């Protein structure tokens, strides 16, 4: 359906620098009616800046504008604010949700564009007192949601919906604007489960068929290949490739993105876990974690292995480490090295010699406002009494800044963390480097067993392989047992020895990592017939 006539959007030689720091150099591309353009690149490659220019964001104007020209429908445009861009039919769905949680779906979709009813009050006081036409609001929003091919109740409060539905609501909002001609989707599938993602992708296709041009940004390369017509690959502020999607492979794209060979699969190894002793034994664990309820999980972890826990989102895989550590209310029993560990008390878990790298980096994993050395050393200082000078028989424990800085520098070097120095604040780092800080924090605890939850979520492909490699190295060098929880099966298959799949709060099966993906896929969708009673 790609229209080959004049392009709807054309960018010519766009360059942009932030105070001398060149982020975009000579970027040119064009987008036709009904075309889906995939935009990929590592974090910091310049994708967001490019989209900000397109959308006329303030930040561009405030930092001195851009060079080059942008044409919409053959006319040169220069948006001074996002309102101009919206008026010109450009819609953008941001990575962060910009929805009002206490408003319904319909209200969110039509916010500030509500159909209104005229009444005698507005006769007296003017149009500002028109009342909302609820019926036509519901209809309009239903129509917009319908275009996406999902069933969402338009009178539901947004705050009560799962993340996937929020993402759909946000897209529906853009669609409900009749003038929308160009739609930018910034990582729309990042928070979706696989089923939801595939619904979204088919919706994207049908939108394109209606003639809307779409710019699709994603880290999931398979999606890009599946859904896009053309793929634009960016690296260091330049467009390195502009190719038709159908001839591409993930490996090619990945190579172009990082500019080096990505060894996504570390060499598979054979680890004889059955002959090593059981280190951690989880029995009948239940965890009350909203959205990730664990109902009844029993699992033995052997010394020295890397065990993966996979499964679809919402099935409870994330609840296992969070419950074991005690961050959410849990029951059942956990035995570590023969000793039972009290649940619901993070301190006991840590004292036993276990550590947990949370999937919620910004919420749980980091002190965003503090420096990197604090972030790395804090847990080890509090739990293991490391990095402290002791006086008066340990009555007075003084922070040893020198040691703290030394250990921070050591991990910054070892994990290749990109930062100005250990004094930089954690919130200033990119996602991948923040993840490395979280790992460094856990490594500093020198745990015997390490839980790692979604270690590669939201980080780019280059950083991903570094993080996975760091985990594998750590396991091999210091013999630390690792339990890795991830929604990306391929990643688990790459570094784990065996993988447990969690479905509906229970383990539906454990298979060796070399088992073909299809078998894992079957486990993920299997509903167990003999549903066990949920323990109290």
């Amino acid at each position, binding site marked *: 359906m790609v229209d080959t006539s004049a392009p709807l959007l054309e960018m010519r030689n766009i360059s942009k620098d932030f105070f001398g720091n060149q982020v975009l150099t000579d970027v040119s591309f064009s987008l036709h009616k009904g075309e889906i353009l995939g935009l990929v690149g590592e974090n910091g490659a310049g994708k967001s800046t490019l989209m900000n220019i397109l959308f006329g964001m303030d930040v561009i104007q405030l930092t001195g504008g851009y060079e080059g020209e942008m044409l919409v429908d053959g006319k040169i445009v220069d948006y001074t604010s996002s309102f101009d861009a919206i008026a010109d039919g450009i819609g953008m769905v941001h990575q962060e949700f910009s929805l009002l949680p206490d408003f319904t779906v319909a209200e969110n979709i039509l916010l500030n564009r509500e159909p209104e009813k005229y009444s005698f009050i507005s006769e007296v006081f003017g149009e500002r007192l028109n009342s909302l036409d609820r019926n036509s609001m519901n209809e309009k929003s239903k129509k917009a949601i319908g275009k996406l091919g999902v069933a969402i109740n338009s009178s539901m409060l947004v705050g009560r919906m799962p993340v996937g539905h929020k993402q759909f609501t946000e897209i529906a909002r853009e669609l409900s604007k009749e003038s929308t001609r160009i739609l930018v989707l910034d990582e729309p599938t990042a928070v979706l489960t696989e089923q939801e993602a595939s619904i979204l992708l088919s919706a994207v296709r049908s939108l394109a068929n209606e003639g809307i041009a779409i710019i699709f940004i994603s880290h999931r390369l398979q999606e890009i290949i599946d859904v896009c017509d053309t793929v634009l690959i960016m690296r260091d502020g330049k467009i390195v490739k502009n190719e038709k999607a159908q001839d591409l492979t993930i490996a090619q794209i990945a190579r172009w993105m990082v500019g080096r060979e990505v060894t996504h699969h570390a060499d598979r190894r054979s680890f004889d876990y059955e002959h090593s002793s059981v280190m951690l034994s989880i029995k009948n664990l239940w965890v009350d974690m909203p959205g990730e309820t664990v109902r009844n999980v029993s699992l033995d972890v052997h010394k020295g292995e890397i065990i993966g826990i996979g499964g679809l989102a919402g099935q409870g895989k994330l609840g296992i480490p969070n419950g074991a*550590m005690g*961050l959410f209310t849990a029951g059942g029993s956990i035995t570590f090295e023969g000793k039972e560990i009290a649940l619901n008390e*993070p*301190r006991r*878990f*840590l*004292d036993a010699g276990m550590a*947990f790298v*949370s999937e919620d980096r910004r*919420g*749980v*994993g*980091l*002190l*965003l*406002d*503090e420096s990197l050395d*604090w972030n790395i050393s*804090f*847990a080890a*200082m*509090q*739990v293991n*009494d490391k990095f*402290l000078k002791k006086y008066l028989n340990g009555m*007075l*424990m*003084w*922070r040893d800044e020198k040691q703290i800085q030394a250990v921070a520098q050591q991990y910054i070097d070892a994990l290749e963390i990109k930062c100005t120095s250990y004094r930089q604040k954690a919130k200033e780092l990119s996602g991948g480097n923040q993840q490395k800080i979280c790992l460094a924090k856990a490594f500093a605890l020198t745990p015997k067993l390490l839980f790692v939850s979604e270690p590669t979520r939201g980080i780019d492909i280059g950083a991903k392989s570094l993080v996975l490699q760091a985990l594998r190295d750590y396991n091999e060098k210091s013999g630390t047992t690792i339990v890795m929880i991830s929604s990306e099966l391929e990643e688990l298959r790459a570094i784990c020895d065996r993988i447990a799949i969690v479905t509906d709060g229970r383990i539906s099966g454990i298979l060796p990592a070399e088992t073909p993906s299809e078998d894992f896929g079957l486990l993920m969708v299997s509903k167990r017939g003999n549903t066990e009673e949920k323990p109290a």
Partner: protein
Amino acid sequence: MTKIKQFIHSFGWPRIIIGLFLLSLFIIAPFVGINVSTSLSDTIVRFGMNGIMVLAMVPMIHSGCGLNFGLPLGIIAGLLGGTLSIEFNFVGNVSFLMAILLSTPFAVILGWGYGKLLNRVKGSEMMIATYVGFSSVAFMCIMWLLLPYNHPSMVWGYAGTGLRTTISTEGYYWHVLSNFLKFGIGDHFTFPTGMILFFALIAFLMWAFLHTKKGTAMTAVGSNPVFARASGINIDKIRTLSVIMSTWLGAIGILVYQQSFGFIQLYMGPFYMALPAVSAILIGGASVNKATILNVVVGTLLFQGILTMTPSVMNSIIHTDMSEVIRIIVSNGMILYALTRKSEATR
């Protein structure tokens, strides 16, 4: 030039503006017939009097409990210590020491309960704290009358029971710190060495505490409580500890205030004591969850400096005695200003 910019950025425009204003007051002062040495001396005395109460804000800010609007609770502990010390007939230096010792158990118990309460209302600590302060003052208004004090220098003369609203500390701990090693330059400038040293000591202890393992934990709890919990910290315990520390510093703070001021002010005395302390630390550049000792020192100097200088300079310019009115306008104006700066500093 970049260095100057950096300095301005780290020091903050509000402090530079207030600092320049204060400086201009000192420059105008001699022209309207005000003795600069007296003013300087007053500023330093006020700094010493209020410094520890401002310092009392620090632990709770670090632990994420926000600004201690419940400071009157600590002050009440201090008042109990002070009055008991007099009741037991301690005099001179000993009476000050005993006042501190006697107020400590009250501060610990009240702070513990106050801390428990604040742990139940996470997220709206400052609102609750304000009312803890107000209601405890009201409750003590009754208690000052009912408690069986009978030392003649403190009770109402005609009834023989019930404490008076103001009690002189003369003969007890009046100027025990201020007069220690004090020296004068010229006729009008005296430096209350002991009081400043005492503040420095307490401030040093606070600084040192923040460098210990527990202190580090406290900062982390304030910075990200979930992170702290995931690092094995008992958040509620740390928060309670911070509230106890804050309350105790409030108690010490009011005793230092009284020894310089010369009077114990009971009943509604502590009612508005929290606000100047809160404003001073905010003006010093602290935010709701970050504060340093430097913020305390700078903030107290600026706030008390303005408070000393503005009324006297204005008075001399307009030649009428408006000092009290101006003082109220200026102090509340500063509080208002500081509170509006609050959100800016958080970011």
